[in-house]
């Protein structure tokens, strides 16, 4: 077991959360993480020992996800709301609502610039401090903060829209975006 693989394993939970914030769906997040790992392993020689593995792998995940989104735009992906409805458990509609909110927010995260996205991933999703994030990305802390503040401003609109969506859905209006 080489050190590279070990470090990748250690990174998996963080990578999954980052991928989840991009995809808004855990299955898709895991697909993305798996592709990211395959890509990272086959390009292992490109990673320089002593540099950050986390930001390197986050970048790979970002690139793969952009490619996927681009491809989906061409094909026109349809979200299957019935799959959500059939979930066992409590209130199906509640699950649908929160999933759609998640997807809406992650859609917005996906639309951010890669630099903003990675800051959201490291600081908001991972909980790194500004200083840690600045070191990880080799950026001045001031740059980190201004980029992050801007990214969160634009995200907040999506999150508020998400709140609205929940209210709308619970009053019985269907959400057109997800109907098949």
């Amino acid at each position, binding site marked *: *077991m080489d050190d590279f*693989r*070990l470090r*990748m*394993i*250690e990174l*998996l*939970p*963080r990578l*999954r*959360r980052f991928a*989840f*914030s991009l995809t808004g769906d*855990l299955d898709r*997040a*895991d697909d993305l*993480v*798996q592709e990211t*790992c*395959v890509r990272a*392993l086959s390009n292992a020689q490109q990673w320089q020992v002593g540099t950050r593995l986390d930001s390197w792998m986050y970048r790979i995940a970002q690139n793969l996800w952009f490619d996927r989104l681009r491809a989906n735009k061409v094909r026109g992906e349809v979200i299957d709301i019935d799959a959500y409805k059939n979930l066992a458990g409590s209130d199906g509609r509640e699950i649908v609502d929160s999933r759609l*909110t*998640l997807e809406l*927010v*992650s859609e917005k995260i996906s639309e951010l610039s890669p630099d903003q996205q990675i800051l*959201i991933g490291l*600081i*908001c*999703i*991972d*909980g790194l*401090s*500004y200083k840690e994030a600045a070191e990880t990305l080799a950026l001045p802390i*001031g740059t980190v*903060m*201004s980029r*992050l*503040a801007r990214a*969160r*401003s634009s*995200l*907040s609109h999506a*999150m508020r829209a998400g709140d609205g969506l929940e209210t709308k859905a619970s009053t019985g209006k269907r959400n057109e975006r997800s109907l098949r």
Partner: protein
Amino acid sequence: MSEVSDETLMAYADGELGATELQQVEAYLQEHPKAEERVRMFVRTGVGLRQMFDRPSREPVPARLLATVLGATTGSAGRRRDNIEVAGRITSVFEWILPAWKPIRLGIAFSAVFMVGAGLGWYWQVNRVQWDATARLAEMLDGRVLAQGDLSRALDTAPSGTPVRLVGSTGPAVLRPVLTFQTQDGNYCRQYEMDTVDALRFLGLACRDVFGRWRLEVHTANGMASSSTGKMAPAGAATSPVVDAAVERSIKGDVLGREEEAALIKKQWRAPRQ
């Protein structure tokens, strides 16, 4: 006070300000409700976002992802030996299933080779709060998971077959050492079962290192400990191929007898002079 920048309000919401700045911002907020609205926005997009996308840290990393990184294949019976080989090479297999996780069925659990450094280490990075709670029974040191507190004491003192009550991160648990043996290197290991309050049964193997600490070599979920009637399954009913393989790999000779074990416990695990 002069205008406070958006970045400073964000740092306030994220708990990144020092005491002086904190006071200044709080004074400012009292007179500027609009700034307070900004702070709420930053909380929503900070802690709020973290909670929103927290689900992966409450569930195990899927076996397929581990297998991808390990270069192993999951699922097929013919590959089982390979998985153990992989585990053997890294000296320790570790399936750390936090109580919040769903029990993994045996077949899947077998191919899900988790490693030391994975389980707790991950949670150390991902969720410090969770780590703090878990740390009562185990800690991560130099890539090893070491028993702590109640768990360490129970492994030190409980004879095989005797259940001992532990206080775990999410409630009480019962630890039952199953057997004790000596390894090829002359160290002692104990196989154990652990039942948690949420009716999960874990099987594991802990080995004493040269510093006298119990290192958890394997800790694996083996499904539900209780039957549908809510009664605990009889001791010894559960087996795990991962634990069995780890025992087989390291055992020298036979399992220790009751007297030998009792003598070791009494001598605080100092090996008898040969």
